[in-house]
C-alpha cells in the first residue's frame, strides 16, 4: 500500500503542476498512514532525487526516448506495470490533457474509481471522499470512491506546493516498451509562453478591445507580470486570438492567483471558466457589466486609457523595488 504520483514532463522539464500533484500525493499518503512514490516516463534533464523535497520517497523511471512521444495507451500500460510491482493502490495525477487520456484507462485496468478535477485532499472520516469542481467551476461535488484502488486527478493551481527536506531514491524500471500504433506526423509546440492552465497570473481580453491590433495592451501587461494571456469566446471565434486562449464554460477552465479581465462583459459562460481564480480584477467602461459582481477589484473606465497607466505604474513599482 502506497501512493503513486505521475510526474509529467515536457521537453525534459517537470511541470509546476506535477510538483502540486507530488505535494498532494505526499499529504494523501500521510492521511492514509503510508508514503508516496513517483513515476516519470521518458528522458529528463531534471535532478529527480530532488522530488524528495516534495515528499516523494522513491521515483520510478523508465528512460526511453520512445516515451518522449506521448501515447496514453502505452503510458497507461507502463504505469500499470510499475504500480503492480510497487504495490501502490492510490494514484495521483495533475489533471492536464495527458492525465485526461491516461487516468481513465488506468481506472478500467485497475477497477479503480477515478475523480478528475479534485480541488482538495480526500476526507477519510466516512469512506474516501474527494471534492471536485463541477458545472465548470460553478459548484463542487464530493465524490465517494467505492473501490479498493483509487485514482485522483488534481486540478492545476488548486493545491499549494509544500516542501520539506528530502531525497528521493531513483529506481530505474526495466520493461519492454510497446510500440505505439499512433503515428505522429507533425508536432507544433508553443514555446516561450507561460502555459495558460498553470499560470499564476492571467491577463485576458474581450470584445471591448475592438480588434486584434489592440492586443499589445494585453500582451505587454502580461509580459510585465510574467502572466499568460487569455480571451473570451467571441474573440477566439472571430480569430482575433488563437482558440487555445479561449476560457470559459466551453473553453479552458482556469484558477490562477490573479485574473485580470479587460473589456470582457462577464457573461455567465465566461465566469464559469474563471470564477475559481483567487483574485479577479475587472476593467470595463460599463459600470453595469456583470463581471463587477464576480470581481475583487475593479476600474470603471476606458481600457485604452486605464491599461497604459497600469503598465506604467507596474514598471515604476518594479524599478523602485
Amino acid at each position, binding site marked *: 500500500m502506497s501512493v503513486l504520483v505521475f510526474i509529467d514532463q515536457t521537453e525534459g522539464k517537470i511541470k509546476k503542476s506535477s510538483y502540486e500533484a507530488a505535494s498532494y500525493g505526499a499529504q494523501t499518503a500521510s492521511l492514509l498512514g503510508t508514503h508516496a512514490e513517483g513515476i516519470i516516463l521518458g528522458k529528463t534533464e531534471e535532478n529527480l532525487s530532488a522530488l524528495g523535497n516534495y515528499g516523494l520517497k522513491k521515483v520510478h523511471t523508465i528512460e526511453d526516448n520512445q516515451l518522449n512521444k506521448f501515447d496514453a495507451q502505452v503510458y497507461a500500460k507502463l504505469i500499470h506495470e510499475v504500480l503492480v510491482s510497487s504495490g501502490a493502490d492510490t494514484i495521483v495525477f495533475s489533471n492536464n490533457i*495527458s492525465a485526461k487520456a491516461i487516468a481513465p484507462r488506468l*481506472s478500467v485496468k485497475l*477497477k479503480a*474509481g477515478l475523480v478528475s478535477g479534485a480541488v482538495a485532499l480526500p476526507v477519510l472520516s466516512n469512506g474516501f471522499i474527494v471534492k471536485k469542481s463541477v458545472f465548470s467551476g*460553478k459548484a463542487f461535488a464530493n465524490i465517494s470512491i467505492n473501490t479498493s484502488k483509487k485514482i485522483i486527478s488534481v486540478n492545476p493551481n488548486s493545491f499549494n506546493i509544500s516542501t520539506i527536506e528530502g531525497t528521493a531514491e531513483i529506481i530505474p524500471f526495466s520493461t519492454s516498451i510497446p510500440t505505439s500504433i*499512433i503515428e505522429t506526423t*507533425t508536432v507544433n509546440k508553443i514555446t516561450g509562453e507561460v502555459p495558460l492552465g498553470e499560470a499564476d497570473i492571467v491577463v485576458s481580453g474581450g470584445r471591448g478591445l475592438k480588434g486584434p491590433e489592440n492586443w499589445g495592451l494585453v500582451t505587454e501587461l502580461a509580459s510585465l507580470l510574467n502572466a499568460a494571456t487569455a480571451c473570451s469566446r467571441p474573440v477566439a471565434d472571430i480569430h482575433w486570438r488563437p482558440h487555445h486562449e479561449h476560457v470559459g464554460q*466551453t473553453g479552458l477552465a482556469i484558477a490562477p492567483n490573479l485574473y485580470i479581465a479587460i473589456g470582457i462583459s462577464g457573461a455567465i459562460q465566461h465566469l*464559469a471558466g474563471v470564477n475559481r481564480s483567487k483574485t479577479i480584477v475587472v476593467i470595463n467602461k460599463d459600470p453595469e457589466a456583470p463581471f463587477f459582481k464576480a470581481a*475583487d477589484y475593479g476600474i470603471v473606465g476606458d481600457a485604452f486609457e486605464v491599461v497604459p497607466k497600469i503598465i506604467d505604474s507596474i514598471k515604476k513599482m518594479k524599478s523602485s523595488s
Partner: protein
Amino acid sequence: MKILVCISKTPDTTAKIAFADNNTKFSADGVQWIINPYDEWYSLVRAIELKEADSSINIHLINIGGSDNEPIIRKALALGGDEAIRVDTDKNDSFYIASQIAHIAKEGNYDLILTGKETIDYNGSSVGAMVAELLDTPFISHATKFNIESGNAIVVREIEGGEETNKVAFPLVVSCQKGMAEQRIPNMKGIMGARTKPLKVVEPAAAEEFTAVATFDLPPAKAGVKLVSPETPEELVRLLHEEAKVI
C-alpha cells in the same frame, strides 16, 4: 464506415446551479436541458460533415439516460444521424456509462466513436478514454481536426503545450473540441425527419459503479468589488501588491 456519436444531456449554460435533498441532488427546477455543447457542436456536426462527403457512412447516436432524455436525442437526430440508441438507466458513474457505450460499440462493430472533450456538468473528461480502454483501441483526445485519408484517420489534437497531427488506423475513439466543426441549427426538414428516425431503447448491460456523488457544495459568495477610480490606476497596482499580494 459506421460512426457512433455519444450524446450527453446537460443543463443549459445559463442554468442556475442549485441542489436539493440536503445537497445530494442537482435541482432540475426550471432548468432547460441541452445537448452537451462539445457533443453537439463538434462531434455530431463533424460526423454529419463526413457523411455529407461520403454517403456510405452510417451515423448512430447513443445516449445513456432515462426517457426524459428523448427530446435532446430527437434534437440531435434533427441535426443529422441515421438512428439513435438510448440505454435506459439513470446511473451516472463514468465507468458505468463507459461500459454501456463499449457494450453497444462491440455489438455494432463501429469504426469510429466520437465524444465531446468533456461534459459541461461533471467535467469528468473520462468516458471516451474508458471506452477506448474497454475496447482496447487508441484514443485521441482534444481533437481539433479530423479527416479520413486512404482508410486512416488523420487527427489534429491539442497536447500539453501545443498540437500534433496523428495518423491512426480504425477502429478508434476520438474526443472533440473547438476547431472540429461549426455549430449548426436544425432546419425544418431535419426536425420533421427526426420524428420518424429509429430510436431504439435498450436495457443496460451489467456493470459496476466505481464512484457516487455524496454531496454538492456551492462556492462561498464573493465579498464584493472594491472600485478604484480610473484617474488613479496606480492605486489598483498598490492594492494588488500590498493588500491582495498577488503581484
